[in-house]
């Protein structure tokens, strides 16, 4: 079985993100870029399905040229091939355009199953996977906290506010996984060495059948018109606990009439 998995390179989430004050696009030049931590669950889920079905994993990403680093990281974890769509004209694309490009790439790869994480850690839009499913005419099984493939069926436990639904569909399908669905493996040294020689396809927009004039900021149905710091809470009193802190908290709760 062929499993495709979507990955994204994002600014290191432990730093504070910034938008370029002029273009209102994500300032991608600052700091380290990393594999979105959410995506490591997706890659692990794909590798587990591949192992269970004697299949292989193809990792797909759209982003700047250095997104190749996160594709190599997924390869070091065990993915056998990569597809990177990188084009200056894509900068500023909205979620719908991103879905169109990734759907076209998925069509080229022709997987039985496409896995993604539920939302990226930087943009957290979360609509791209289901939009891809719609463009491909595939079912989508989202918010999976458990995933099982048997024969031509996929079955998940879909997160709900109070528990989960068991949801199933026939392949091909799109599945999005939540954090905690598995324990992502670390790349081994052998994996890192092997990843350097794994094939990487870099199709152009034209090869994917995407109209370059309809992507990027020009193709986006929305435009950021301003960015402002959000009002922040002011910090209050901070005390060191020397045995008295519990009493101080209790006094505060009494003051607030909670007790």
């Amino acid at each position, binding site marked *: 079985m062929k499993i495709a998995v979507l990955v994204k390179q994002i600014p290191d989430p432990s730093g504070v993100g910034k938008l370029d004050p002029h273009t209102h696009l994500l300032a991608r030049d600052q700091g380290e870029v990393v594999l979105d931590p959410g995506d490591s669950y997706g890659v692990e889920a794909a590798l587990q399905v591949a192992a269970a079905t004697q299949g292989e994993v193809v990792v797909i990403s759209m982003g700047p040229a250095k997104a190749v680093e996160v594709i190599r990281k997924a390869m070091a974890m065990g993915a056998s091939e990569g597809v990177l769509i990188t084009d200056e004209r894509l900068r500023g694309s909205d979620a719908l355009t991103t879905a169109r490009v990734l759907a076209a790439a998925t069509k080229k790869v022709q997987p039985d199953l496409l896995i993604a994480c539920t939302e990226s850690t930087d943009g957290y839009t979360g609509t791209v996977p289901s939009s891809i499913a719609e463009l491909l005419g595939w079912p989508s099984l989202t*918010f999976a906290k458990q995933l099982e493939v048997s024969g031509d069926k996929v079955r998940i436990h879909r997160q709900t*506010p*109070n528990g989960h639904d068991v*949801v199933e569909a026939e392949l091909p399908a799109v599945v999005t996984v939540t954090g905690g669905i598995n324990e992502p493996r670390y790349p081994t040294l052998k994996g890192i060495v092997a990843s350097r020689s794994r094939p990487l396809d870099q199709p152009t927009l034209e090869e994917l059948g995407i109209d370059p004039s309809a992507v990027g900021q020009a193709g986006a149905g929305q435009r950021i018109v301003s*960015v402002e710091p959000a009002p922040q809470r002011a910090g209050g009193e901070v005390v060191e606990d020397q045995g008295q802190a519990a009493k101080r908290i209790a006094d505060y709760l009494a003051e607030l009439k909670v007790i």
Partner: protein
Amino acid sequence: MAKKILVYVELAGSELAPVSLEVLTKARQLGTVEVVVLDPGASDAVAMLGAYGAATVYAGEDATYRAFVAQPAAAAVAALVEEHHPDLILFGATYDGRDICARLSARLGLTVVANAIDVELRGQEFTAVSSIFGATQTVLIELGGPSPCVLLRPKSVTAESASGPPPRVVKVPLPPDAPRGARRVESVVVPASGPKLEEAKVVVSGGRGLQDPSNFELLEQLAGLLHGAVGASRAVVDAGWVPYARQVGQTGKTVTPDVYLACGISGAMQHTVGMKGAKHIIAINKDREAPIFKICDLGVVGDALKVVPALISELESRGVAG
């Protein structure tokens, strides 16, 4: 001419979902409200929808909408959009809302803003307000193209009813070519005691600083004394210590209690975005530099595993009983 706002409304059991009431309240401020509700119980919701300002209700009661996730609903909403051309489409940012909105967007080529906290009408154009980077920055996004879609985060708006005439009800059939897709085979509800996390006046939350899943029992005890609910950070949910239903933050629940007590939580943006709307925040953390201390009203630099049991004893000695 008044703008036409189409609102996708969800039911929770036989009631309207709380987030749908919030979205309706926002929609009323923007124009004429038309509602689409696709659920076998849609008819029962009509009176309530009128009370929240719906002028028209498109009701689809086919059991398919409940049995299959998102795909049939997206096809039905798309048919309505093509027929009525709303100026704006609003969804609550829920599991189903997000999936249906994503499919609708792809089907008809409509732009989407997810995670909006507000929508404004500026001149003739809609502008969505969204907070990014853990709500440290606010962006204004001008929406263009036909029928832009906005997913409104829960608790962004306070739901208020309005007095209006009963809405016009239009039955909508299941589109004959609607794909079925993924089938809901079973629904499992994890029983929970005490007040609901989203509704509790007091929330006691725990993170990595509790060191071991068994220590969440301390928080249960404390929450019991304060008639509160227990929440958690993403780190401990991902680690499998507590169920996802407890998660507070960007990917979890947004809570706005009177008091939020963060125990052993550093205050990553991912978490604070879900709790910074609390009226009062108390934080206990070992690390003096933890970001949670920058937003709390009372901070204690100390070990939650010492402070929480001491607090429980202190409350008990003051005669507090749950």
